[in-house]
């Protein structure tokens, strides 16, 4: 697959079909492939595809195109250039691209999608737990196993057990849209278990849910890494840093953090593709997915649509129907 990605990248670059290809390259840290930007044929051999490609590259597609558009603002209209971006995209990445397209962030002809079937990426958190928090010095996949190297020696574990939660129940591991597809379609993941976690949480009493929410949010130090890595978080001015109005207080009060999280997570309604990128980058291990997945579940159950799953279906909060459900509407009691 890796070879095919490189060949495709070379063809696209040589044929001047794209100006740059965004993909993954070997990182300097174990368990982590690094996003890279390839703009000439010779560099295309740097591209890799493995179980450590955890970031959602749609983020960079948006960044590159918008950076370029800004650079064109002072250029005469007739001399403006377009930048065509190629991107190595698995299922969730293509969903994010669909969201960008639906939200008119760029047009379809500005991107070339190299679709890659995906079998999941390794969760760094799960790997750390597997080695009891020892520093992981190296990682390698061999067959269905992963070998983690620490100062104390090697630990071998089944790859499946270390895959990210988002991957384990992923419904869209094959690309939704693509211009070129490499490899054979990936086998389906355990989609039936998709909402098990959410349902279990829903069935807890109020107080337990509240306790869990506050406990998780108390870990957050507002580094904003989750927002920075999320392809759906592309606002030029984020509410989190806005001062007029000042949505999020800068103090150390717990509720300031809770507000930030509540607002960011809710902003993902109908827009989160469960790529797990935010969970992967969070240095504090906040269980963001527990809350994000709820929005996905409700969006589907109430409005029969999943974020970025279908180019023809508008995002749930950008559309409506007269006959939408409204059981939540309060009808006053008939008292005197």
């Amino acid at each position: 697959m890796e070879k095919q990605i490189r060949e495709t990248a070379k063809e696209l670059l040589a044929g001047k079909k794209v100006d740059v290809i965004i993909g993954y390259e070997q990182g300097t840290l174990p368990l982590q492939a690094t996003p890279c930007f390839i703009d000439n044929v010779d560099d295309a051999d740097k591209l890799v595809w493995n179980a450590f490609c955890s970031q959602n590259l749609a983020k960079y597609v948006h960044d590159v195109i918008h950076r370029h558009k800004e650079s064109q603002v002072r250029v005469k209209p007739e001399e403006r250039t377009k930048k065509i971006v190629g991107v190595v995209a698995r299922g969730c990445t293509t969903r994010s691209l669909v969201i960008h397209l639906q939200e008119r962030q760029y047009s379809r002809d500005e991107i070339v999608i190299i679709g890659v079937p995906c079998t999941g990426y390794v969760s760094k958190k799960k790997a750390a737990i597997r080695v009891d928090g020892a520093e992981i010095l190296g990682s390698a996949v061999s067959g269905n196993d992963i070998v983690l190297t620490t100062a104390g020696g090697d630990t071998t574990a089944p790859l499946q057990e270390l895959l990210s939660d988002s991957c384990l129940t992923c419904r869209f591991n094959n690309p939704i849209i693509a211009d070129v597809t490499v490899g054979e379609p990936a086998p389906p993941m355990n989609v039936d278990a998709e909402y098990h976690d959410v349902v279990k949480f829903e069935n807890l009493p109020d107080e337990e849910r509240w306790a869990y929410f506050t406990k998780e949010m108390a870990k957050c130090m507002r580094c904003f890494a989750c927002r920075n890595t999320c392809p759906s978080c592309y606002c030029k001015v984020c509410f989190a840093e806005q001062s007029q109005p000042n949505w999020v207080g800068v103090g150390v009060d717990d509720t300031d953090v809770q507000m930030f999280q509540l607002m960011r997570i809710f902003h993902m309604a109908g827009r989160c593709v469960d790529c797990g990128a935010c969970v992967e980058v969070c240095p504090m291990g906040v269980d963001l997915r527990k809350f994000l997945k709820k929005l996905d579940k409700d969006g589907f159950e109430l409005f029969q649509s999943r974020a970025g799953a279908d180019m023809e279906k508008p995002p749930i909060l950008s559309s409506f129907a007269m006959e939408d459900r409204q059981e939540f509407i309060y009808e006053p009691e008939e008292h005197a």
Partner: protein
Amino acid sequence: MTENKGQENWVPKIVGIVCNWCTYAGADLAGISRIQYPPNVRLIRVPCTGRINPFYVMKALQEGADGVLVSGCHPGECHYLTGNLSARRKFYMLSNFLSYIGLEKDRVMFTWCSAAEGERFAKVVKGVTERVKALGPASKLVKHL
């Protein structure tokens, strides 16, 4: 908004975010018709429920509202045709999400109330006030300075 919390004679403070064209006028009608209803709701007038950012609701809770009531034109009667229809989706998601994190369901309530429904407005306010009273002062998400 926290001054009388913990006191025996505690009365809830409820923020009502209402649409100018219907519920606000409905409240007016209730007023001129001299219908009695509890004075606990402070109204904030917005041009349409479609204008209500879910952040308003969250922020109101953080700033100490014991309850939030959102009300606008009945579906099909929005002054801007569909503002309340997109709002309805947003608020359904919001209502579910706030309960999911453990907030009491009755802290945040949504309803429709037209300009002709002065009586319904009074009933809504009464009902909402009673429910919030039953919950007691808000503690979750409230910022304590």
